[in-house]
């Protein structure tokens, strides 16, 4: 186990997967803000993937992390062609010009021959239609782990975890582009820029946080499914969702890194029997969710169902009100730090 000490404070995010519509607004908000350089075309500090699916990069879940005993697991750097996928442009102009002319159908096509991409298996999901087909969206970003594998992997100490908020940052002036951080992070949320030959990763929109503004991915989310605040703020949404109601779970806790991004797991409508009648069994197999978020999924889904039932009966539910985000201001509990004005 890495020896990183817990920080004085830890900023965190909770994402309610029951509300994500896969619109990718968060992805674009992040991308346009932080990753428009030539060497970062493939890099999405925030992405949204469809599950069940192989994700981005492809099959990322199979590389890196630690064993339950805390031993390092060797990872690897994904390949651009087959696992990240090269960014491409579409032939919009050609299609526009040919529209309505001749017999040949003007298909919209990529300008290369991509083999994978950031949302390659969008909306495929799993299960037979119409009895049990299902999918849901999983937005992912750096987890700003309590014990970051990337930090532990860097021989140059070019990665730090800030004591005041637990945000994990790459010092690109110290980075020599070795990519051990890319290898070691099991979430594959560190990206190498081959043009500048340095690694980069989500900075939790640090300049915004320091002004008391939530990260772009959270502020731009039309579904209001993201909550941002400090883990120790008992008046804030994070503490309520993670500690009071205990409905927010880390992704792949078995990696043993202490992620500080948490998810409210998705509920799902029932499967149908051969006559089209609801069976009462959720379409998204609970054991699949256990594989993502750990064994506590059972109790979380029970809590969510119970609180939903309260609302159906007209009873109050602070948890449901919070998750619905009637008052969007309650999604974020951040305050600008006192700072010297120059």
């Amino acid at each position: 186990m890495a020896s990183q000490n817990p920080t004085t404070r830890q900023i965190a995010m909770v994402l309610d997967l029951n509300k994500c519509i896969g619109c990718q607004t968060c992805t674009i908000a992040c991308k346009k803000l932080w990753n428009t350089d030539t060497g970062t075309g493939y890099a999405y500090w925030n992405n949204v993937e469809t599950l069940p699916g192989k994700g981005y990069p492809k099959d990322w879940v199979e590389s890196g992390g630690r064993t339950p005993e805390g031993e390092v697991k060797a990872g690897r750097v994904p390949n651009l062609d087959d696992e990240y996928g090269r960014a491409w442009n579409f032939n919009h102009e050609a299609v526009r010009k040919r529209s309505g002319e001749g017999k040949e159908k003007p298909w919209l096509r990529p300008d290369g021959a991509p083999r994978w991409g950031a949302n390659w298996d969008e909306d495929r999901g799993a299960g037979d239609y119409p009895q049990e087909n299902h999918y849901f969206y999983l937005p992912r970003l750096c987890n700003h782990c309590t014990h970051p594998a990337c930090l532990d992997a860097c021989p140059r100490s070019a990665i730090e975890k800030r004591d005041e908020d637990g945000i994990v940052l790459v010092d690109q002036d110290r980075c020599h582009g070795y990519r051990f951080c890319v290898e070691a992070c099991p979430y594959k949320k560190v990206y190498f820029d081959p043009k500048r030959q340095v690694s980069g990763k989500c900075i939790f929109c640090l300049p915004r946080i320091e002004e008391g503004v939530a990260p772009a991915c959270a502020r731009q989310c039309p579904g209001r499914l993201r909550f941002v605040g400090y883990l120790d703020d008992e008046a804030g949404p994070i503490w309520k969702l993670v500690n009071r109601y205990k409905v927010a779970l880390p992704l792949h806790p078995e990696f043993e890194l202490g992620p500080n991004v948490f998810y409210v797991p998705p509920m799902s409508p029932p499967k149908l029997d051969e006559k089209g009648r609801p069976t009462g069994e959720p379409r998204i197999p609970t054991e699949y969710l256990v594989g993502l978020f750990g064994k506590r999924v059972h109790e979380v889904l029970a809590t969510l169902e119970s609180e939903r039932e309260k609302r159906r009966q007209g009873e109050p539910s602070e948890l449901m009100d919070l998750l619905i985000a009637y008052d969007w201001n309650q999604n974020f509990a951040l305050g600008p730090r006192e700072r010297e004005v120059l």
Partner: protein
Amino acid sequence: MIAAPVGLSPGGYVPKAYAERTAPKTPVAEFEAAKSGDVWQIRLRWACAEPHRELGDDVDRFIDAAAVLAPTVADAPMMTMGAPGKALEGALWRADRTGLIGVRAEGLGTVERGDAPEGWGAKAEWKAGRWSLDFELPGWSVLDARRRLAFAIWQGAEGGRGGLKSVSPGWIEIGT
């Protein structure tokens, strides 16, 4: 040459993930060192079946590289890239760059890169499965004083970078 001991690499990942990497990817390298006037001329040759000269836009590709180093003080340890107050200095050649990079370190993980001293340069050629690299290093006073040097070679095709390198087994005395 020997494999640089990954067990010494800083951080918790490399020593565990690369524990099996005990054999050098460049078992043999040949060198010649001579001084002509003020200029140290150092030739280094090694086998390299698959040269990696550029990254392009790939993210899982690594570059061939080599370094020549000398101690700034007599007892600077070579295998740990020096120690606090006992620096190594020298030149780093990378197959994807034209000029040399100046390097200085006072221990593992402390390498600082900068401009090489004025006039330092290198010519490299890959031919028939071998790299031939000729350093021209005028005015290298540290080597003048210490008369010992060491080499490191990174094979890009073998994922060489950082501590994943082949190194001379220790300081090589070059006489007077």
